[in-house]
């Protein structure tokens, strides 16, 4: 699907989940790009305001769950005057196919963008067949 994507304001999507969380804060769904190369699947998520120590990536039962929490201590001395967006923790879950090597998942966080690289299992990588 090739559509020219103009930069526009994306309202934060609030998470509506079947289970409730134990703390009554709102969670938002981060914008994610997913792309695939021959040897890995990569997820790129936008989580502005989150520091490395507050990111939790877990893989259980073929489900990849990402939770990125915001440290809102910085907002304590600030009194709002005019707001256009809300802030909150981010969370998103994906179910993965069994072709992912679960031991080799790496993550990087830079400028509020979290990049998760999931390497594929060797059997799942495309092989070139030589023609005699």
């Amino acid at each position, binding site marked *: 699907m090739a559509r020219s994507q103009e930069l526009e304001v*994306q309202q934060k999507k609030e998470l509506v989940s079947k289970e409730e969380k134990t703390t009554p804060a709102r969670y938002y769904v981060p914008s994610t790009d997913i792309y695939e190369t021959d040897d890995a699947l990569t997820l790129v998520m936008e989580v502005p305001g989150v520091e490395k120590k507050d990111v939790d990536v877990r893989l259980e039962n073929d489900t990849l769950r990402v939770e990125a929490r915001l440290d809102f201590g910085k907002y304590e001395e600030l009194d709002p005057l005019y707001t256009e967006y809300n802030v909150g923790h981010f969370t998103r879950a994906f179910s993965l196919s069994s072709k992912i090597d679960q031991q080799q998942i790496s993550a990087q966080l830079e400028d509020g963008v979290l990049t998760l690289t999931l390497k594929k299992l060797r059997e799942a990588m495309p092989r070139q067949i030589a023609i005699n």
Partner: protein
Amino acid sequence: MVMLFSDPIDAMLQLQQALDNFRASDWLGSSTSASGAYPPFNLFRKGDEIVLIAEVPGIRKEDLQIQVKDRTIRIAGRKAVAYGEGTSLHRRERLAGAFDRAISLPVEIDADRVKAECRDGILAISLPRGERDKPRTIMVG
């Protein structure tokens, strides 16, 4: 407006509700905004300063241009989202492009003492109040 964070469990929700309440604020007035509404701003008061916070994930200091003149602040730049060759895209939700937004504040600011910081995808600009705007105490003779 004082926000009470005495209850840590509720504190985040209180902040979120406070931010929601100021969505309809007309503090900024109906000023013209150059080219679009990205990135969205939140404006706060911190003591005698105005603090502008914007979410700019994936944008580095070099891609940003901030200018201040009188009561107007202009934030411009480019957001790039690029993936290498030989990749097959399964999902695309992130947007990219150039942005240029200017807003006019209803208070005087001191352009020489404006400080901007961009970290972890958050741009925070502190705008101290201009000297001329501060009230002068008059002594009664």
